[in-house]
């Protein structure tokens, strides 16, 4: 039985993956691999809980977003300005994120792994839709962040394909030399791409802590930052594709939690997101086409 409640659960599972995948698209389209997204989610979840605890849920979300962005700035500085290997910098950031949040948690809340309970934003009932029998569970009691996330999918698509900024972002990811010759500031564009990815990942972490759970718990991101990278590849570096992929991952997670089919063991569904990831990353589903210059550092020739 796949009912509306089950889909509502799938959507809640999808949000953190989708937000982070949207962020990843910005970074990779500008040519920078951001494997530190997991770490940016971690700092996002912690600082969001901190902000929400002191100044309310909205401030919490902002704190989370800013924390993710701040960590991304470090990644941008390392990879764009100092031309550090993208993977090395990303891994380092993941470790730094883990260590600093634990340290901050101990110094601020006097506990290593959890924050006190925090308030969430008031949930929204979408008018009209929440009365329709099948869609009701999807449309009632929805976190505003869920709606924001889906809006961001289309905003991202518009920005990438319709605006000058989007064009330039894609250009530096495909061929930085050519873009540079045409007067595009490669470094600025790449900084922008990476920082935007951090803002998105920070919001994803903030959603987990403030909106879904109502507290920060160490390790609550559970590798969703990496799943998001897979979703981005699955979605062929485009926001609509990433949305489809994230929904698939969210759905399989929800299926694992709600044993819907009696004769299939739930462990199978639990395994599904990871099997899907392997299939997808392995390029079995489709030939994915990453931005041509992704993962490389750009140096201005004389």
């Amino acid at each position, binding site marked *: 039985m796949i*009912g509306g409640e089950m889909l509502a659960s799938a959507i809640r599972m999808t949000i953190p993956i989708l937000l982070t995948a949207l962020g990843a698209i910005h970074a990779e389209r500008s040519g920078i691999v951001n494997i530190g997204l997991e770490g940016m989610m971690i700092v996002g979840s912690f600082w969001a809980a901190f902000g929400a605890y002191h100044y309310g849920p909205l401030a919490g979300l902002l704190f989370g977003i800013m924390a993710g962005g701040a960590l991304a700035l470090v990644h941008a500085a390392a990879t764009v300005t100092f031309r550090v290997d993208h993977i090395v910098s990303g891994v380092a950031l993941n470790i730094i994120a883990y260590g600093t949040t634990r340290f901050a948690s101990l110094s601020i809340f006097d506990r290593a792994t959890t924050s006190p309970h925090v308030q969430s934003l008031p*949930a929204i009932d979408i008018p009209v839709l929440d009365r329709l029998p099948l869609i009701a569970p999807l449309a009632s009691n929805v976190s505003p962040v869920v709606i924001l996330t889906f809006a961001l999918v289309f905003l991202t698509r518009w920005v990438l394909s319709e605006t000058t900024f989007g064009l330039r972002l894609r250009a530096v990811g495909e061929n930085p030399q050519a873009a540079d010759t045409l007067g595009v500031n490669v470094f600025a564009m790449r900084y922008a791409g990476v920082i935007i990815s951090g803002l998105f990942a920070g919001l994803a972490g903030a959603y987990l802590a403030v909106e879904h759970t109502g507290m920060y718990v160490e390790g609550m991101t*559970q590798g969703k930052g990496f799943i998001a990278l897979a979703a981005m590849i699955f979605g062929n570096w485009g926001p609509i594709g990433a949305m489809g992929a994230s929904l698939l991952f969210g759905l399989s997670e929800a299926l694992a*939690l709600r044993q819907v089919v009696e004769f299939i063991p739930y462990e199978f569904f639990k395994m599904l997101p990871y099997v899907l990831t392997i299939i997808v990353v392995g390029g079995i589903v489709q030939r994915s086409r990453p931005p041509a210059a992704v993962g490389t550092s750009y140096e201005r020739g004389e």
Partner: protein
Amino acid sequence: MRKQRRIALMVAVLFAVGVLLSACGQADQAGGGEDKLKVGLVFDVGGRGDLSFNDMAYEGLNRAAEEFGDRIEVKYLEPTGGGENREELLRMLAEEGYDLIFGVGFLFTEHIQKVAAEFPDTHFALIDGYIADLTEDSNVVCLLFKEHEGSFLVGAAAALATETNKIGFVGGMQIPLIERFEAGYHAGAKYINPDIEVLVDYIGTTSEAFKDPFKGKELAMAQYDAGADIVYHASGASGTGVFEAAVAKDKLAIGVDADQSLTASEEQRPHILTSMLKRVDVAVYNIIAAEVKGEYKGGYHIFGLADDGVGYAVNEYNEAMIEPYKAKLEELKQKIISGEIVVPVNNAELEQFLQDLGS
């Protein structure tokens, strides 16, 4: 080629992250002193702030620290996220000359066994874990609880309070210890009403399951959606998610270990029917008190209903909710203490129990 290299790197990175995340948190309390008794405690997964199991142990430690103020020095440590450095932390405390060291949680069982053998002059206390063949002269004491007895009572309370004849259970890590909560709860509910349906879910099979409120919430939501109107959790810090689900669905939940109504948020409180109390705080305090008096003994301490080691919570917030069932619960409590009801501790015993109920 490059893509393949990237995939290989990604996998390597995942492993590296897992291995390298081994910072350890620690906190000191009280100043040093030469002839003070030194008490150390290492927390379990979920750590301080789980508002449940670990916080109860902390409370016991705190009470002892306050009471014996100038005679003892206490220190507590929290292991890494996955808890890989449990043994290291125990050994560190032993090497620093701590006189009494607690391992909070069954996961410490083999580590305490090992470290205790290396430091024969140090006293150890293991909560929730069982080490065979201990005597009074051993330097390890196991503090065990009859969680099934307390769970039986809250199961009965749930059966009395349910309106849908469907109740739920969300366990943390699927292990015999947590199955004891489940079996007791199930038995208590069926004892009151044989037709009641009990939905059972576990969050996971690793210790991470005790700090995953995200899944805790989703599992509880699923149970409420399936018609349950009361969900009991035995999942440490993940339980916060269960309470969140109860708020979102406007249903009831039952807390565990600590009296969780007291620590819950304003909006959660009206949704907590009661909590299954497991007085880890009393156990910790008692052992420290014995150590201070020089009366520490190895072996086993088992806390049950009879000595108020387990029970159900009544407080100013749930008083009105639980009042109608109190008489019945007290009656059941007496029956368990007198041995008239023998509460099952696992699924095999539960089946036998249910058969006997039917006949």
